[in-house]
């Protein structure tokens, strides 16, 4: 199914840290969704975030991209403390998030969806994003160029997921966060998506929440395992596969 040579790039050195979270916490009422998490991303890597349902993965990345405010802890991005920045300021610094539940502009055309995403590049706080934008090229990257003038809401589900990814790519981000991108996709679409992630990784660091293990194993250079709001384990795919605690969390004691 997922026929991809695992990227063999060695993990970048610690000096090239793109993002780091320290003691990041979030509670909803009495429920501690994310609890004092320390987390680092190296520039240029593809990182997978896995864990059982309800482990706090989506909440955690929402704290990173600013969709949810943390109760405690800090987030640093490219050496700057962004903990206090609202979501749109973080996006302008180069953090893009694609939603778990498809979130597009259904009544606008596919092209307009991408154009709306891209026009903000001119305000980006990181200058490498302020390049000329070619919406056609972005749509070609995800294979939607023939659907450019169709209403986005009329696309098939898999194509809407690709459009969602295209909107993330159109921001030309430094960090691209995918939240369960392959959910509900066919095998062929999953393959296409994996190619897309590898291609996007040439210009962006990727953080991927994913349940599909073949996809995770094919793409990720490192894996972080979440369980009950904390990091249970972190390492290469091989390490994680052999980790006893991970097997317990996934398969039950």
């Amino acid at each position, binding site marked *: 199914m997922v026929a991809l040579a695992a990227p063999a790039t060695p993990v970048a050195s610690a000096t090239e840290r793109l993002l780091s979270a320290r003691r990041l916490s979030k509670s909803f009422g009495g429920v501690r969704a994310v609890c004092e998490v320390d987390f680092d991303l190296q520039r240029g890597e593809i990182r997978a975030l896995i864990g059982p349902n309800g482990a706090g993965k989506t909440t955690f990345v929402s704290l990173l991209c600013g969709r949810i405010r943390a109760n405690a802890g800090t987030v640093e991005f490219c050496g700057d403390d962004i903990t206090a920045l609202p979501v749109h300021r973080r*996006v302008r610094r180069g953090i893009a998030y694609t939603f778990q539940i498809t979130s597009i502009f259904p009544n606008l055309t596919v092209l307009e969806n991408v154009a709306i995403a891209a026009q*903000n590049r001119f305000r980006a706080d990181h200058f490498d994003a302020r390049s000329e934008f070619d919406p056609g090229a972005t749509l070609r990257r995800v294979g939607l160029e023939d659907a450019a003038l169709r209403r986005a809401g009329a696309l098939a589900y898999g194509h809407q997921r690709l459009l969602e990814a295209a909107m993330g790519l159109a*921001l030309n981000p430094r960090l691209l966060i995918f939240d369960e991108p392959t959910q509900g996709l066919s095998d062929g679409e999953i393959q296409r998506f994996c190619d897309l992630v590898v291609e996007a990784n040439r210009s962006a660091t990727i953080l991927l929440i994913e349940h599909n293990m073949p996809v995770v194993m094919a793409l990720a250079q490192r894996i972080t395992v979440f369980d009950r709001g904390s990091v249970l384990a972190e390492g290469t795919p091989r390490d994680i596969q052999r980790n006893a605690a991970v097997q317990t969390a996934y398969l039950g004691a």
Partner: protein
Amino acid sequence: MTENAAAKPGANTNPAAGLKTAALYAAVIAALFLLQFALPEYHRLSVTRIMILAVFAIGYNVLFGYTGLLSLGHAMFFGAGLYAAGLSAYHLGWSVPLAFAAGVAAGALLALLVGCVALRTTGVSFMIVTLMFAQVAYLATLYFTGYTRGDEGLVLPQSSRSFYFFGALVDLTDPATRYNLSLLLLGIALAVVHRLVRSRSGRAMLAIRENEPRAQMLGYNTFAVKLQALVISGALSATAGAAYALLFAYIGSSFTTIQYSIDALLYTLLGGPGTLLGPVFGAFLMFYLVDIASQYTSAYLLVTGCALILLVLYFPAGIVGTIKRRWLPWLP
């Protein structure tokens, strides 16, 4: 907002559609211009009023149709324009152009202040908050009755019935002058909103209407975009209010009642929210519906109510909106 660069190519750059819309605007404006020679006096005055009300609805549509925010208090912006223009002409003796400018500025300023508070809410709360602000505005016109004469209102003095424009005397008591000034304002309002919805700010407004969390996640400061939309909307509504005061030389509290807020909403809904010509058609239709029905029965609201139900059933996106959706997708 810092929207200096021209809109990027991409969306809405179909040249044929651009040409068709330009032709359509020209046809509408030309038709309205020619109409004045065919209409009897009574209807010429009605159409003059309708065109001003259409400007109000176009302003309302910027917020409701394009940004997706339903306000129930737009009478306060219409009223701000009406009173700022009327009071400055009446009490301070300001010339017509100056009073008009004061009206537009008052509407924009009021929208800015109200927006800073009201835009912290969305949906039903936003409707209630705008309704409350509008009620405060209405009560203020009654409270300061020493200046406004409340319900009874003020008739503007003869001195503000004419002005010089580059040396030429413009007489506002002349029906033809009033008609063409209204038409001019309508044309300007259409052009302004046409430009706006094709600009980057306009596209950001559409993005918020369609999916606000997504717009935020694409780096838009959605509060700032919504505030911008409200200020433009308020300024256009106040333009209509100021024109109404100065063209018809009367200001009174009745123009700031909820009735006027609802009218703006109805014109827009009827014509088609988020279409450029929808509010114009809506204003015409609604005005004449009430006008004709009231000639035959005192229960004219019942007739208009039934007509509205039929329209909602068969034209759910408004008249222009439904035509656009079903047959003519290039319509502005």
